[in-house]
């Protein structure tokens, strides 16, 4: 059994909470006491139906305001897969939350109300999912019951979305007509839409192939921690130096020749250990310890790769930035702290090329700054090089977070488009 992480974006109006509630309920992942609590609260609030949104809205403020504010993570499993849902709010003022949820997702579910067709919001969700390079996307056309399960409505929305998706770089796109309220095509195939011969949403989530989404070609091992036992009593451990970290790309095996950055020194892998045992190979996202055949001075923040396949060692990077601060703006000359893999460096914004309108994709080249939830393309100058790849090539070596030097708040996320 493996894990599929997927993000859902949308508001109560789209039926997102109902859809998640339906997935959890029909896969028997809601517990009796949780359902009881929701039923009780719904009754107390004078609602005449069991409001499944109450299952997902965990904070007092969310229940009071009837909205989802933050990313909530939910878990369910079927015999085939374990699922982690990043349930994110859909409104534009929560773009940063959706970006956060999408950063680790294998798949994004974009919800559309069949009665309204594509809206500004669904276009924005699709854009953000592709910006974060979520490899798979499902357009769930919801509330099919309210359009009499009409195949023409479904096909019109699919065609419109396909035309829009062609302007983005959507990897794998699947369309599913559903009614979350009645359960059509959510877990089981619906008898109400005989014209649809595709899988139910859950069937697709259970089977979508994600193993090859990872980069298994470019060996990238950011050194996270050096393990040195300092056990004077145990001679066998006296010379132990293990380089611990989480594989960010490629496949490593004992005997492989590897290159250390920044030194440029080459050596070979003597052994790989995972959770205290020797393993024959390592790939993303395994946390392992590498033992090398030569004594090289390696510390946290360094990178291990292959001699003829190196990341860029870049001090100037071009990146798409999602700005997440309500306290300050991003503009040329803004100073920041950047965390990339296991390396933290200082940075200054040298240029803001444009701000992108997340609803229309229009690029505003006259923009002088980015405010909260705004996205734009910037150039950053770093105090030290980072070992990176374009985000499109590798999410782990192409993504970075931006931190405020004074308040220590996380104020942005950046995806590298070009390095060097």
């Amino acid at each position, binding site marked *: *059994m*493996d*894990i599929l992480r997927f993000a859902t974006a949308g508001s109560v109006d789209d039926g997102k909470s109902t859809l998640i509630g339906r997935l959890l309920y029909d896969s028997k992942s809601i*517990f*009796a*006491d*949780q359902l009881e609590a929701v039923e009780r609260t719904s009754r107390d609030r004078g609602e005449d139906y069991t409001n499944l949104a109450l299952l*997902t*809205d*965990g*904070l*007092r*403020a969310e*229940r009071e305001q009837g909205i989802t*504010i*933050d*990313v*909530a*993570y*939910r*878990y369910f*499993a079927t015999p085939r897969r*374990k699922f*982690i849902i990043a349930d994110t709010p859909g409104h534009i003022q929560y773009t*940063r939350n959706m970006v*956060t949820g999408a*950063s680790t997702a294998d798949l994004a579910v974009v919800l559309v109300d069949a009665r309204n067709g594509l809206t500004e919001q669904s276009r924005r969700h699709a854009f953000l999912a592709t910006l974060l390079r979520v490899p798979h996307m499902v357009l769930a056309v919801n509330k099919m019951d309210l359009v009499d399960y009409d195949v023409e409505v479904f096909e019109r929305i699919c065609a419109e979305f396909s035309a829009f998706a062609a302007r983005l770089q959507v990897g794998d796109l699947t369309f599913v007509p559903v009614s979350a309220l009645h359960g059509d095509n959510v877990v089981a195939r619906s008898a109400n839409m005989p014209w649809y011969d595709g899988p139910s949403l859950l069937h697709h989530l259970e089977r979508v192939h994600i*193993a*090859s989404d*990872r980069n*298994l070609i470019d060996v990238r091992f950011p050194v*996270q*921690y050096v*393990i*040195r*036992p*300092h056990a004077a009593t145990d001679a066998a*451990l006296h010379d*132990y130096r293990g380089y*611990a970290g*989480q594989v960010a790309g490629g496949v490593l095996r004992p005997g492989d020749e590897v290159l250390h950055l920044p030194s440029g020194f080459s050596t070979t892998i003597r052994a790989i250990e995972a*959770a*205290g045992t020797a*393993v024959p*190979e390592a790939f993303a*996202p*395994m*946390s392992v310890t590498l033992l090398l055949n030569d004594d090289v001075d390696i510390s*946290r923040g360094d990178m291990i790769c292959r001699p003829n396949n190196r990341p860029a060692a870049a001090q100037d990077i071009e990146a798409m930035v999602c700005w997440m601060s309500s306290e300050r703006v991003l503009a040329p000359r803004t100073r920041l702290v950047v*965390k*990339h*893999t*296991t390396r933290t460096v200082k940075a200054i914004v040298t240029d803001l090329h444009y701000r992108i309108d997340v609803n229309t994709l229009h690029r505003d080249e006259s923009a002088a700054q980015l405010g909260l939830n705004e996205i734009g393309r910037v150039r950053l100058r770093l105090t030290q090089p980072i070992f990176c790849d374009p985000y499109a090539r590798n999410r*782990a070596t192409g*993504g970075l*977070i931006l*931190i405020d030097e004074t308040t*220590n708040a*996380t104020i942005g*996320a950046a995806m590298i488009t070009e390095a060097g």
Partner: protein
Amino acid sequence: MHPDYQMSQLDVLESEAIHVMREVAAEFERPVLLFSGGKDSIVMLALAERAFWPARIPFPVMHVDTGHNFPEVIEFRDRRVAELGVRLVVASVQASIDAGRVVEETGRHASRNRLQTVTLLDAIEEHRFDALFGGARRDEEKARAKERVFSFRDEFGQWDPKNQRPELWNLYNTRLHRGEHIRVFPLSNWTELDIWSYLERESLEIPVIYFAHQRQVFERDGLLLADNPYVPRGEDEPLFDALVRYRTVGDMTCTGAVSSTAATMAEVITEVAATRITERGQTRADDRTSEAAMEDRKREGYF
């Protein structure tokens, strides 16, 4: 070895937790691991052992001791800590009461559960801990479902759920000012079933009270509470013998047992997979106070 380079869900969760632990060891000066002797903290300690092997775990463990523990759990705690050669810090709620820092609750529902927060925050200040590993999982409770893996606390130990640091990819913002700290939850993405499956796969030992045993219990608000010297029992709450096990292990005053015949790990897993009630709902009186009981306690600095 790995057809298609796939990893099982337990391998993915294990790698993620080890990454989190190494990140803390690398970036903080004074981390500590909260260890209660419960199953989640047992998994956490095992992960710490694996993350730094063959070196010793590079931080101490701390137990916030309400004084109302199951003796089997304390025995287990002391043995495990000795095996691993880690330093144990005990923060005692009784000491906080004796020092006048907190006042003991009285009455039938008296519990030291809430008092733990003061003891915990005092210990953080005394030892100047800057990162605390906790075994909380997001599937436990809906306020926890919204919490970050690296959860920032201000100088008063408070959690501000509406102003959390965005957390992207596997990049964790570990920066702090003096007096602030981070609660770190390496098991955030684990479910109760994952914990049991991992305990079984790794053959980890757990306190015996997790398996079915005969015990004198009484019923209160639908919970089976153990006969113990810390809970005043009403006349309408007669003791009876029952075959029970614990799904969670906390303070004796608020942790209920469940009727069960599961005497082995495999039998427990079968029961957990089939249960229709959440573990906190079935076994914890402390979460039943209100819809936002957990959120309110967390804001004040509770785990």
